[in-house]
Each structure stands twice: as C-alpha cells, then as structure tokens.
C-alpha cells in the first residue's frame, strides 16, 4: 500500500475454508435448482421458488450441522375444485369485513411483525429427465420490518436470525407500512398503479398483478381501508376464481381465491376463513403439467399467517 495514501486499507479476514465451502455450496445449489429451462415466473418466484432450491443448499449444510430436512413430507396435494361461485362478490364480502377493523395509531419507530408457518418444495431436474421433489417440514418464519423503512429489520426462521436492510425506497414489490398507507383506496386506481408499477415483470400482467397483491396481503400489515381496496382490486383481475376447500400450512381449512398462471401451469391460491373473512395463508400448486415437467398436484409452497402485529422492537412479538 502506498504510504502516502490518506487512509490505508483496513485488514479483512478472508472467508476461511469452511465458510468458503458453505457459501460456494449455496451458490451451486441455487444455480443447480434453476438450471432447467424454466419459463419466467412471477417476481415472487423468489419467495416460493428461490427458497426451495435454497432449502436444498440448507439440506446439504444440514448434513454437516444438524436439524431440518424432511424426507417424509408429502410433495403432492389434492388439486381443489374450481367453484361455480364468482370471486368478485366473495372478495367484496372480505373487503367489507376488513374495512370495519379498527385503525390504530402506528408510529414511525415501530415495526410490523408477521409470524407465519411456511413450507417449500425443492426441485431437481437431472439431465436424464428424472425429477426429484422434496418438501421441507412446515416451520416458523418471523419478520420485523420498520414502519417507515428507515431502520434495519429482522428475519428469523430456518437457520437463525438475519438482519434485513433498511428500505428507504419502498414499492409494491417491497412495501413498508407507510408505503401501504399511501396507496390509493379506490380499487380501480389501486389496480392501475399495480399494473403500472409491475409492468414488464412476471409472465403476464394479470398474473403479476395477482401475485403482487398476494405478496402485499401475506407478509405485511396494511391499514384496513387499504386491505379492503386490495381485495376489491383483486376482484377486477381477469381469471380470478374461487376454489372450494383449501388447507393452509397450519392445517386450517378455508376457501381459496386463486388464479392460474397460464405460463407455468401453477395456481396461486389465497386461503380465507369463510366465516371470519380473514386471510389465513397461501398455497401454490401445480394444476397442469408444467413446461419443465412438474406433475399436476405438486405442492410448490404453502404458508399460514399466524400473527400480525405492530410492535416496538425487533424482539417483541405481538
């Protein structure tokens, strides 16, 4: 190093052999899981589908460490029947219930806390055409996100706590409470914004709008009026159907509001409690054989929202 430099380089210990191997293995598994020519999925592919391949990476590491991995978890499920019932009135009913919820005071220095139960499948496509599907056992996932995005958040679940970077520039794919609060509550305007802001993402604009709304509903807290507007906006998306009986990751039965991704052949299903009209969780299931050969009935991912709360610190739970 040049002695005349005003600020010499601080020393940084390298990764070391074990850590290098772990990170390398992780990268390899991520690439391996995605090597098969797969049609473009929705942006949320990261949530359902990056996770599965990462699970495989975790499983490899787990062999060295200890813990998860669930060889006996079923990887297929019953494909629910699409109901004759229209989705729009059902979503309207959910909206009416949602907007009657009280709105509390939410302060910038607080955090949105969501605890859910999640389980993902992992896919391997070998060059000889065989495919292997495994699914991890449902496990808890907890997230804390700063109300105004200005501070780091926290993610717990899987393999220990992780800090989440602050989010100073929220958008529909990466919201904060303050951002959600700022969304239009007129369903037509809200949906127009979602289409505009997700332009070019996902397989089709309609499917991308549907999964984006699902993301906003699942792991966040929104003011009741916004939640209601999201339900009403979803009701306007073409191709949204009702599925009679769907079970979430916690085993709770509900009614599904779903949309088939025509490109991948998988159906995203939001699960609602029929009596309470509340959002229980979400499921993605292969409905027709996928272009890469995934069989109908394959359960791609499943979740159940257990707790939502506004909390004061990243170690407070509702």
């Amino acid at each position: 190093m040049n002695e005349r430099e005003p600020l010499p380089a601080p020393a940084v210990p390298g990764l070391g052999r074990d850590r290098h191997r772990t990170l390398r293995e992780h990268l390899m598994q991520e690439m391996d899981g995605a090597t098969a020519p797969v049609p473009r999925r929705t942006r949320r592919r990261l949530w359902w589908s990056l996770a599965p391949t990462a699970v495989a990476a975790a499983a490899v590491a787990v062999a060295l460490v200890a813990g998860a991995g669930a060889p006996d978890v079923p990887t297929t499920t019953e494909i629910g029947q699409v109901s004759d019932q229209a989705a729009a009135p059902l979503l309207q009913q959910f909206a009416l219930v949602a907007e009657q919820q009280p709105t509390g005071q939410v302060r910038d220095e607080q955090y949105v806390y969501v605890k859910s139960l999640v389980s993902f499948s992992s896919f391997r496509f070998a060059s000889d055409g065989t495919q292997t599907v495994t699914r991890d056992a449902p496990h808890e996932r907890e997230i804390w996100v700063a109300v105004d995005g200005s501070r780091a958040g926290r993610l717990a679940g899987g393999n220990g706590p992780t800090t989440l970077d602050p989010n100073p520039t929220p958008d529909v794919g990466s919201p904060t409470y303050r951002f959600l609060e700022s969304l239009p509550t007129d369903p037509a305007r809200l949906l127009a914004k979602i289409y505009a802001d997700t332009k070019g993402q996902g397989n089709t604009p309609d499917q991308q709008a549907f999964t984006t709304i699902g993301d906003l509903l699942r792991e966040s807290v929104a003011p009741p009026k916004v939640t209601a507007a999201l339900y009403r906006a979803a009701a306007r998306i073409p191709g949204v159907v009702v599925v009679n009986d769907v079970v979430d990751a916690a085993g709770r039965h509900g009614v599904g509001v779903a949309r088939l991704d025509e490109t991948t052949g998988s159906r995203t299903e939001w699960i609602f409690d029929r009596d309470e009209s509340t959002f229980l969780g979400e499921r993605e299931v292969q409905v027709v054989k996928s272009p890469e050969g995934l069989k109908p009935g394959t359960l791609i991912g499943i979740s159940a929202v257990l707790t939502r709360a506004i909390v004061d610190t990243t170690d407070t739970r509702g």
Partner: protein
Amino acid sequence: MTMSLRARLRAGESAAFGEVFDEHADAILRYAARTLGDRAGAEDVVSLTFLEAWRLRERLLPEGESVRPWLFGIATNVLRNTARRARRHRAALDWLPPPDTVPDPADEGADRLDDAERLAAARRAMDALKPHEREVFVLCVWEELDYAAAAEALGVPVGTVRSRLARARARLRLETHGKSPARPDSYQVTARTRFGLNQEGAR
C-alpha cells in the same frame, strides 16, 4: 476447442461459476466489508453478488480479460441497493446457514476485535466522501483495481475515475489532517450489530 471462461459463464456452466467463486470470493468479501464497515454483513453481499452474476450472466461481454471488474461492478450495485437486492434473494439468504465459524467478538482475542474496530473506523472516515468518490476510492486504493478496471466496474469513463479519485484523496487528506485516528470505542456498536442480533435476538 475449449470454451473461454466468459463463454462458459455466459452459457451458465456451474463449474465456471465455481471457479470464479474460488478465485474472487475473498476479494468481493474484502470490498464489501470495507464498504459496509462490517465483516459479517459482507458475507451476504458475497452471496448476493454471485447470485446476481449468475442471474445476469448473459450480460457479460463475450470478449475481455479478467472477469474481476465485472464482479466488482455487480458487487457495487448490490452494495448500492442492498435493501432491494436482499429482498429479491431474501428467501435464499433465509436458508443460508449462519456463520457459526465466525467467532463471537466477546469471546475472541483482541486481534479479531481490533480488526473489526479498524474496519468500522475506516468506514467512518469515508463518511467525508460522496458515495461516488467512496466507490472509486475503495476500488482503486483498497482493492487495487487499475483505472480501467474500476471504470469498467462502475460503468464510467476512465477520466471520471481519475477525477473522482483525486477529489476523494484530497478530501480525505483534509479530513484526516491533524486529527488523531478515530477512537475504537465510538463504533463498537457497528462491529457488534450482527453478532449482537445473533446472540440476543435484539439490538
């Protein structure tokens, strides 16, 4: 005829990414740690950088010398917008085993802690720089990329690298002139953030 490394990377050959990871992971780690002032958070940046490299592999130019500037360019983008990038790969990172081999500073000898303190101190000193100047300074001075490589990484002309670096050095001289080095106790929190979270579940 054997394919060039760039061709293999562009074709998505995982072994090629493995080679590149082996060769450059530590360099990216250093770059990230020095930019963040935090060694632990830097590991996520390494993972994100290589995941991004894989995702963006077709944008790698077919011709060229070392891929290091390309990787540093991706790492720079990751560092510029860690929040969004982290979301894209959040689920993946969720599953990455925590660095259990990284020692707990509380139990560790003074050497490691001193490293962390010096790292954080150096990062604080760079607060005097504008973000663009900081990037150029770290790439050219600390990571020892030449002007052309830094220009490639940052996607700016070589002349811009030169002028930003000159401004960065001038500003740092001004800043450090007559001042004693930053005191270690003032940034202990930064170095401990990640570990603190792991141990106590809270900041």
